[in-house]
């Protein structure tokens, strides 16, 4: 074993003794035991280093938060969630009777073509209102992964591409979509009025039940060729009536969906402790990996906060994250298509079946057609993210680790302009810690709707 260079010892001795006269006394008192003195010297000289080591090793357990970081924690805390914004396009949005009707409709399979599919087929309450599948299965295979409906009363846009701007107009879309519920507007409306409870609640909420033609045919402006031809055979007056009832069905479902909210997670308890100074600078139930993950999450190194900000961990917007197309024949252009679709939707906020005035439709009024939209997709909430795999609009990633790795790889390999974040220098440990933090965002789903 080579000897420690005398210069090193001397250097440390000088440095150490300069700041610690009591150590100088102790060392001097051991002058009669030269060998022992040397060993003790080394041990004492190393003491600050060992202390430093332990400080570093357990630094996370005594993590300190700057005032700016505390503000960020507060902004992510569920307690910072503002009251549910009103929906002027839906006059029964906050009516408990409408929510009760909507709850029943949400689980009703009678509106689908095969009488087996309901909203809850792809938005299962026991799976946090997702289905756990890469692409949802209705009457066929959907093009995309089912988003959760929890907390969506706060959304400005719906679907991965924002092709709907109101919760009620989203709710009725799958009812007619081929491969999802695949019903038709005319059949759905007639089916709805066959139920005596629905008739009673409809009258209570929307007034008298309209008179409709006796014949029930597969007719819809969004169905297959036969359904669309049949729809054209219906007079414009009846078309408007069918459309209005269809919109009202959506408004009741939306009233229920608005009441489905995120409950507090382990992160929220930790954040509350920090921002109220209850257990400041302690781990408060977070282990070192979770704490490190949280620090990374709110820092610029991982850039997560750019899009996943606020109490729902989303800015509710659309961003390009450089996901390669899975199919060259059928590319998914995301928001680019959604922008056009929402403007053409007869059930949008400014449409004839909305209860809002045009001036209330601020998202539509100030829609930005110049924002990057090709291959941009909606930013999902990260609440309950560990419980709602798989991930991305097409469910291509089965694990959170794989998902975060995509951001690292894409930022290193794709040319500038193909994604909306800069290079991420994340180590494997960083990714593991981020995943550990994301797991702390799991919490219950709560609703105020009385069944």
């Amino acid at each position, binding site marked *: 074993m080579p000897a420690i260079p005398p210069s090193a010892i001397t250097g440390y001795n000088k440095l150490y003794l300069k700041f610690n006269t009591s150590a100088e006394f102790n060392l001097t008192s051991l002058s009669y035991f030269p060998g022992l003195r040397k060993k003790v010297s080394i041990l004492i000289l*190393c003491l600050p*280093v060992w202390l*430093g080591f332990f400080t570093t090793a357990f630094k996370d357990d005594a993590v300190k938060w700057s005032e700016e970081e505390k*503000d960020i924690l507060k902004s992510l805390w569920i307690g910072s969630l503002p009251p549910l914004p009103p929906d002027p396009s839906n006059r029964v949005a906050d009516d408990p009777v409408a929510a009760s009707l909507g709850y029943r409709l949400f689980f009703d399979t009678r509106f689908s073509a095969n009488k087996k599919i309901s909203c809850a087929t792809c938005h299962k309450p026991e799976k946090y209102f997702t289905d756990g599948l890469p692409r949802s299965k209705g009457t066929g295979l959907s093009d995309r992964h089912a988003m959760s409906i929890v907390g969506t009363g706060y959304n400005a846009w719906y679907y991965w591409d924002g092709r709907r701007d109101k919760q009620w107009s989203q709710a009725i879309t799958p009812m007619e979509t081929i491969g999802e519920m695949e019903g038709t507007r005319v059949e759905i409306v007639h089916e709805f009025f066959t139920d005596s409870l629905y008739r009673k609640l409809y009258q209570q909420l929307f007034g008298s039940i309209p008179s409709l033609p006796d014949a029930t045919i597969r007719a819809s402006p969004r169905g297959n060729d036969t359904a669309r031809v049949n729809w054209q055979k219906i007079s414009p007056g009846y078309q408007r009536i069918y459309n209005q009832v269809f919109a009202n069905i959506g408004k009741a479902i939306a009233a229920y969906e608005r009441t489905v909210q995120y409950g507090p997670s382990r992160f929220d308890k930790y954040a509350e402790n920090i921002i109220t100074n209850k257990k400041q600078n302690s781990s408060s139930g977070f282990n070192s990996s979770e704490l490190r993950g949280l620090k990374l999450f709110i820092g610029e190194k991982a850039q997560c906060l*750019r899009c996943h*900000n606020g109490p729902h961990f989303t*800015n509710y917007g*659309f961003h390009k994250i450089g996901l390669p197309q899975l199919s060259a024949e059928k590319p998914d252009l995301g928001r680019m298509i959604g922008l056009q679709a929402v403007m053409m939707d007869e059930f949008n906020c400014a449409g004839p079946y909305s209860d809002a005035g045009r001036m209330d439709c*601020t998202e539509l009024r100030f829609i930005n*057609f110049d924002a990057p939209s090709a291959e941009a997709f909606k930013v999902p909430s990260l609440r309950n993210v560990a419980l709602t795999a798989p991930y991305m609009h097409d469910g291509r990633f089965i694990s959170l680790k794989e998902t975060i790795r995509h951001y690292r790889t894409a930022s290193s390999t794709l040319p500038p302009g193909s994604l909306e974040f800069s290079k991420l220098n994340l180590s494997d440990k960083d990714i593991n810690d981020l995943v550990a933090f994301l797991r702390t965002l799991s919490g219950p789903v709560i609703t105020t709707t009385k069944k």
Partner: protein
Amino acid sequence: MKTFFLTSVVYILFMQLIAQTGGQSAFTDAVKKQTITDSFQLSEKGFFSVKLQCTKNTPPRNTIHNWVLTVLTADGKPVTDARIQVNGGMPEHGHGFPTQPVVTKQPEAGKYLIEGVKFNMMGLWVMRFNIYGNKKMDAAEFKLKIKA
């Protein structure tokens, strides 16, 4: 044993140095300069004196809201019926606004209501106005930091 101690000393000191220098939050590098104030500033060519104010106490995040741009001549007279184009975004991130803000009305002489502004990220934002008034074209740019 001695080698172990020496190696430990060097290694741990190095690790501590890394921890001290690399562990700082990027948020501590806050933008120090904020140019939105209650006072007027001259436009880029000096044709107009401009002031920008949010209609809310604090500019919100992820919510559409409004601002008021006051445009005066350099010697302090209101510029009415100006044509104003609104641009902006996050220069550090390289993207624009998620919405398209527009001037919708003149509540008073020289004051222009800008509706449809939305900031969807924390950080430095720029609001830029191309102003055509009194047969003169000029531009004014304001910086603001959207916080948590």
